[in-house]
Each structure stands twice: as C-alpha cells, then as structure tokens.
C-alpha cells in the first residue's frame, strides 16, 4: 500500500502565504487585539466618579464621659468621603433604599448599624489599655464595628470604587483621631460576587479577540475560496474535505496561540497582570478556542454568498460573545433566563478556563472541564464543517 501523506499542511501553508501578502488581515490578527485590549483597559481603569449611593445611618453615636459629649463616628467618616467619587443621599428606610439598588437607580446602600460608634469607642478604649485588663492584647479581640455595603457588583469597577472611597474615608478618620481601630467593611454584593475587574479583563479580552478574529477571518477567507473558485479547484484534486478543514484548523490554531502570546505580554507590560498559572495550558485553551472558532467560520461561510454578506454576520458573532461569555461581567451576573445561552457559546468556556489558569493558577485537574467542553465543541464543529463541504458535491 502506498503511504499517502496528509495534504492538510499544504492548506495551512497556503493560509500563511496569503497572510504574507495580505497585510490588512495580518494587521488585524496582530494589532487589533492589542488595540482592543488597550482601549478597553484604559476605558475601564479610569477614575470612577459621581457614583450615587444611599446611606442608611442607624448610628446613635457614643457618649464619651471624659469629654461629656456624644460623638458620631459615622458622620465623621461620611464627612471624609471624597465627594467627587460618591454622591451621598440619605434615607431612613432601608427597604426603600434597597429597592433603588435593585432597579438600578442607585449603585449601593451603605448601612451604619445602631451601635457603630459605641463599639468603636469601646474598642479604642480597650486598645489604649484603659480597661486595665492585661489579657487584652489587641483591638482585634473586641467586637468590630461594621459598615455594610450592599452594592450592585454587576459593574465591578463601580462597586470597587465605592469600597475604596469608604476605605480611604475610614483611614483618614482614624488618622485624625490618631487611633487604629478595626472597622470592618462588610461587602454584600446584590448581584455579582467577588470580582476584580482587571483580573477578569485580560483573559476575557484574550478569548474575545481570538474568537472574534478567527471566526471572522475564516469566514472571509472561506467565502473567498468559494467566490474565487479555488474551493472548486481544490475539490477536483485528491485532497479530502477533512484535510481542507484540518489545514485551516492548524493555521488558525497557530495564529490563536500567537495572539494569546502577544496579549499576555501586553497584559504583563502594560497592565501589570501577574500570571500565576501554567502558560502552556493557557495557550492550549487559546488554540482550542481558535480551532472551534475557525470551524464556526467555515460553517457560517456556507450561508454567505459574497464577502459583503459575510460582514453582516459580524454582529451575530460579536454580540453573544460580548454579552454572554463572561468577558466583562461574570456569567453569574447574567439574568437567569438568559444564562443557558451563555453555556451554548464556546468563548464562555475559554474565558473561564483562561481565568482559572492565568489568575488562580489552576492546573489541568481543575480546568479539564472547560477543556473537554471546548474539545467537544471542536469535534462537533469540525465534523459539521467537513459534512458541509461534502454536501457541496450535489
């Protein structure tokens, strides 16, 4: 039997040769992700200002016998809030205030409990040794005063700005009194849970860029193969449909990995992200996403007769990924009725996989789930693309 070498690498080579001459596509592959990352990064890392919050202040103050005054620490703290950042309104009804958070009029409700100042004074007194109790070593042994922040975390950087404004005001107030007192900020997210924007951002934009560019470039490239007649010419040669699809998959898998590398470097250099996980595992996820995306591009190409029609698919590709894949806000922040849609789009798994690897440092033992689902998508879409090509011989 004659050993016949796979012809897939020839297709891969063809794509790279084409990129060599097609500077526009090459630029899109190399620079678009960088530009997107910088634009989003700068836009989202800017100072947040004019955030509307409601304060519900139950604090009844604390009586200081020594000075014979009633002092309210909550008012001192509120007085130290940076008013550029927060617009504070007051409300006595906590429920009414919460309603406004839930319907989005207000970003957060801040609650000072009734005993806020009393607890604080006790703690400070204890810490300064006036209690004459030698067992007390640190203020931490005492009850802590709590400020509760109930914020709409679905906009993570707004939520973070509120917390930071309060932390700053707190430490400023404590500095004024020359004391160190434990005031806890109890953050109670109404929607999304613990997320820090820049952490989520880099892996998110990585997945988004790879998904979008790969799908789009394959789509355009394949519509080209059809309209130029080169696909027909290929089909009259001994090449198999699977070799054509595989050739494309290899080319875009490599390109996806290169994009991931570029974005990682930008993330590290410009945005100071620290990658704790295995970079190779991250590349694997990036390459897998690229393979899934290119197969999707080939499948979509059957619905487009001309390049111009292909461009009409752009919103169809961009919007679901942008909104549902958990790039800018966690999937958990998406309304429950819409959430199943998130689980049907491949970038969702790449985003979560990349995040786990790059930021949590998780290994294969944790991200096998995301990787297997991406593999499943790849298998499904690649088989679909091959079947679609075979169907063209009718």
């Amino acid at each position: 039997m004659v050993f016949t070498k796979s012809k897939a690498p020839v297709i891969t080579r063809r794509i790279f040769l084409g990129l060599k001459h097609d500077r526009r596509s090459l630029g899109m592959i190399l620079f678009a992700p960088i530009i997107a990352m910088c634009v989003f990064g700068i836009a989202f890392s800017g100072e947040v200002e004019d955030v509307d919050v409601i304060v519900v202040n139950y604090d009844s103050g604390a009586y200081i016998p020594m000075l014979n005054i009633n002092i309210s620490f909550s008012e001192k703290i509120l007085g130290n809030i940076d008013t550029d950042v927060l617009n504070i309104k007051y409300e006595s009804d906590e429920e009414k205030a919460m309603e406004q958070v839930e319907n989005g009029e207000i970003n957060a409700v801040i609650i000072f409990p009734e005993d806020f100042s009393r607890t604080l004074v006790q703690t400070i007194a204890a810490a300064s040794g006036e209690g004459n109790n030698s067992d007390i070593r640190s203020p931490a042994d005492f009850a802590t005063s709590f400020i509760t922040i109930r914020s709409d975390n679905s906009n993570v950087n707004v939520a973070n700005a509120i917390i930071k404004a309060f932390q700053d005001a707190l430490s400023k107030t404590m500095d004024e009194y020359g004391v160190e007192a434990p005031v806890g900020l109890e953050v109670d997210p109404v929607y999304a849970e613990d997320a820090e924007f820049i952490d989520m951002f880099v892996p998110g934009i990585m997945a988004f860029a790879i998904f979008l560019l790969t799908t789009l470039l394959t789509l355009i490239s394949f519509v080209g193969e059809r309209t130029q007649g080169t696909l027909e010419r290929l089909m009259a040669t001994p090449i198999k449909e699977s070799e054509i699809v595989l050739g494309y998959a290899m080319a875009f898998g490599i390109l996806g990995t290169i994009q991931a590398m570029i974005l990682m470097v930008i993330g590290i250099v410009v945005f100071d992200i620290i990658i704790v996980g295995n970079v190779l595992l991250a590349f694997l996820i990036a390459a897998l996403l690229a393979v899934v995306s290119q197969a999707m591009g080939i499948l979509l190409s059957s619905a487009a007769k001309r390049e111009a029609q292909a461009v009409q698919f752009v919103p169809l590709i961009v919007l679901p990924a942008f909104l549902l894949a958990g790039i800018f806000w966690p999937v958990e922040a998406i309304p429950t009725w819409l959430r199943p849609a998130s689980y049907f789009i491949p970038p969702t798994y790449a985003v979560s996989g990349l995040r786990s690897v790059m930021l949590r440092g998780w290994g294969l033992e944790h991200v096998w789930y995301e990787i297997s689902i991406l593999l499943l998508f790849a298998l499904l879409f690649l088989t679909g693309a091959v079947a679609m090509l075979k169907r063209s011989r009718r």
Partner: protein
Amino acid sequence: MPIIQTKNLSKHFGTVKAVNNLNLTIQEGEIYGLLGPNGCGKTTTIKMLCGLLKPTSGSATVFEFDSMSRKFQQDIGYMPQETALYPDLTVHDNLTIFGKIFGLSNSELARNEKELLDFINLHEKRDVPITDLSGGMRHRVSLICSMIHKPKILFLDEPTVGVDPELRLNFWKNFNELGKTGTTIIITTHYMDEASHCTKIGLMRSGDLITEGTPADILAKTNTRSLEDAFLAFTAREVA
C-alpha cells in the same frame, strides 16, 4: 475501453434541465471539443465528469471509476471557467500549492513549473501576485495550474478566453502535442476556428447533444465550409 463514458447523464437544477440524457464516449488521447451557446450545459457536464456535481440521473465513468467515486482525482486536471487562483499569492506560490496537493516533489515541481511557464511565456511574472496580473495573464496561469501534475485527462473550460491570438495558436499546438503523447483533453470554447483543432466535436443545445463527430464529419453533414456555418445550420435546423 473508452477513457470517459457517460450513460444518460443528466443534471437538473429545479426545472432547468442543464444536461439531458447525455451519452458520450471519449477515447484516450482524444481532444474532445464541447461546443454550444451560453447555458447549453458545457460547464455542468465537465463538473459532473470531475466529480464536482452529482448527476440527477444517469452516470459517468472516468478511467472505469464512477464519476463520484473520487478515485481518479490524482490523474485529472480541471481548469474552471472562472480564473480560480489565490489572488494574494504569487504565480509561483499558486503553482506550488496545487503541485504539493498532487504530491509532487520539489524537483518535479521546479521542472514542471519551468516547462509550463515557458509554455505560457510568463517567466517574468513568476513572483508577482495574481491580483497584479492582467486578465489574460491570470487565465494563462489558471490553465497551467491545472497542468502542474501532468494529468492524464485535462478538463479545460474555455481556456483561451481573453488570450491573444498568437498565444492561442501556441496553446493549440501544445494541446495537440499532449494528445499525441496520450493525454486526453476535454475542452470547451466559443471560438469556431479553434474547434477545428479538436479530434472530435460534440455540439450541445439546451442540455442536449445534438450532433457529434470529427470536424470534417460535421462539415460534411451540414454541407458547409466552416464550422461557424455548420454550427448555425444545426441550431437553425433545431429551431425549425
């Protein structure tokens, strides 16, 4: 045993009978010219013979294989009617890609490429992207792209469109030489002067084969002196 044979080969696109009960027999080394007006089914016939289109009914065998079997693709060359090349790639790159798909070694490729560039007289454009070529030049490159692996059967769909007269003459000289060395060529054209170079002609109209024979046969049948007149005579006869 004929190298190509069709039995009631038909292709219908909805209500359009693009090819209708076609019975062709083509021998090895023949230069078979498929002629006929626009839309008579020439391209559709060629695509079916290459295994690109599935017949609606009837069948075709190429090298004794069914046309849809995909067992003979290594030995055929297909030049589509539209210039089918990668526009961003150079002439050399296009030839290399298709040569590699046919499994040519680098030395075979280099040898064939040189020979074929000689044939179309386009050495100076070897490293120029297709987009920067003139229409006729693209057509010439498209032709040799289907010949890079020296196939046993060549399907050429209007290979001489937009090619200047001198080169066209040269093309036909080459096709005749190929025929003598055993290459079979199925060719379509609208130039009647070219048709006289064919060893056999099939005249199609609205999907039907209306007559077949050597150029001399056809002239004798219609009692005309040029194929042009013969062609018109046949179409007139059909209408009447």
